[in-house]
């Protein structure tokens, strides 16, 4: 099934056309990279996909259903998860709470249940704790479970953000520059983590990245944009040699 289908996407910010005629199709299990020089419109595209902005024109379908005009939290329920360029964790909360909040969807007890501490409350909270700790363990973060999120080292914070996005059980995961600020060692570890996540969690991944090692290393397909338009798409080897791509990054 086509998980994500984008057609004729256009974003006009009061005269400035940030995204123009963008199209994309992502099938199950794919690991796709979205690249382009700074200001090309990559994050804007993400924001359009996740409902943080509404497109001026175009259509976005998630698992066959249109998401245009829907709120971000509804789109999450439809199967999209994302991370952010500048890590957006719940800084003052514990690592475990960060995950538990994303797990809210899977819990159903009412306000009254919560306040009166009904058996349903205890049951669901226990189940949530277990599931969230297991998820953290997958990322080797369970040791940090009760630490405050902002106290984690940078690389672990990134992993936490990815783990949190996975707690919503998405079908498509959107990673916005996950390797930003990482050294080569951390990036290598991240590459393994991303591949592992795709395989373990049975999802498709679309990522924005500037680090070409990472992109070439793990992406199966790459789309390159500049000034909001697609200038090339294809396999990593093709993109590497594409003159338009090279021109966009390095100039004439």
């Amino acid at each position, binding site marked *: 099934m086509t998980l994500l289908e984008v057609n004729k996407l256009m974003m006009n910010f009061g005269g400035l056309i940030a995204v123009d005629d963008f199209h994309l199709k992502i099938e199950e299990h794919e690991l796709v990279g979205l690249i382009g020089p700074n200001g090309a419109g990559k994050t804007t595209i993400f924001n359009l996909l*996740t409902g*943080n902005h509404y497109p001026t024109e175009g259509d976005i379908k998630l698992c066959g259903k249109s998401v245009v005009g829907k*709120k*971000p*939290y*509804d789109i*999450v*329920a439809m199967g999209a*998860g*994302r991370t*952010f360029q500048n890590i*957006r*964790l*719940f*800084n*003052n*909360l514990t690592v475990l*709470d960060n995950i*538990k*909040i*994303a797990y*809210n*969807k899977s*819990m159903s*007890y009412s*306000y009254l*249940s*919560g*306040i009166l*501490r009904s058996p349903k*409350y*205890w049951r*669901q*909270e226990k189940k*949530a704790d277990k599931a969230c700790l297991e998820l953290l363990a997958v990322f080797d973060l369970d040791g940090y479970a*009760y630490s405050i999120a902002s106290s984690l080292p940078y690389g672990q914070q990134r992993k936490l953000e990815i783990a*949190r*996005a996975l*707690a*919503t059980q998405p079908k498509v995961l959107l990673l916005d520059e996950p390797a930003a600020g990482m050294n080569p060692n951390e990036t290598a570890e991240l590459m393994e983590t991303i591949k592992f996540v795709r395989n373990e969690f049975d999802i498709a991944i679309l990522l924005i990245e500037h680090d070409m090692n990472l992109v070439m290393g793990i992406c199966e397909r790459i789309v390159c944009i500049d000034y909001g338009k697609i200038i090339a798409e294809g396999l990593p080897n093709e993109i590497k040699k594409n003159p338009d791509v090279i021109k966009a990054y390095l100039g004439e």
Partner: protein
Amino acid sequence: MDKRHRSSYLINLLVILVVYGILQTLIGTGIFNNYFKSIIIFICINIIMATSLNFSTGFLGQLVLGHAGFMAIGAYTAATLGVLMHSVAGMPPIVTITVSIIAGGILAALTGVAIGIPALRLRGDYLEIMTLAFGEIVRIAINNLKFTGGAQGFTGIPRLMSFTYVYFAMVVCVAFLMLLSRSRHGRAIISIRENEIAAESVGINSTRYKVTGLAISALVGGIGGGLFTFQMGFLQPTLFGFMRSVDILVIVVLGGMGSITGSVIAAIVFTILPEALRDFNEYRMVAYALLLIVMMILRPQGIFGTRELSITKLLRRTRAKTKKIDTESLKGGDD
């Protein structure tokens, strides 16, 4: 529920009852005269006002500058019903009070929803300004409407409040907010404060939670207003102006926005302090203002920040120190 939680609840319940016992004895035997009794009652009411404001400002992260407006709505509703039920229908006090304050709370909550839906769409400063305007409009409306008694005030309200009632009402309100904050809904609300965009990105319906959070804050604030009514016996618009909102806000900020125990302790301190310094009125206000400014510069998160004081944890730590118990049991949240 597991053993650890059960023992934690029992300890808290015990402390609550012991404190009640001590205070009630002091009052009952006359060691605490009427003056002290009324101060204690006002402490309980201020605790309710502070913790309710903390819920919207500290936990939800939406600064509300017109909280006195909710208090006023609760107060005047309770006053109207109170007079009707007690003086006209002759109902027993406990029924009168309970029905009146709950009605007041509900009306305040509905008002919270009514202004919340439009107001919470606004970002940052605009929301605060809106809440300020709301508070002022409530005060002006009360001042001008005939059935609220206008500027002269609403008199003739039966003074039905007792220490016992207000103490346990306070306990119920604080427990309500505390338990809520540690449920999945409370976590969702807090996540909005922490990072609204991130919260939305993990499926939290920020619009619904923001309105609900404000409504709950208004509900408890309105109940506080109702209790205030039956203690005061009369109401005036000047009691619910911007100054009142600021008084409550100061308590919340100094205690720590996001800490219920902080609000409780700050409410106690800042109800007693102005009374103790009553003779030095203007100097007291100057000192107050200076304290506020200095606190903001030196310790903006307030005394407690977002942490809660847990009696259970304190006891365990003392035990652990003296008995060298495995500190593993200290991990995890307590209630």
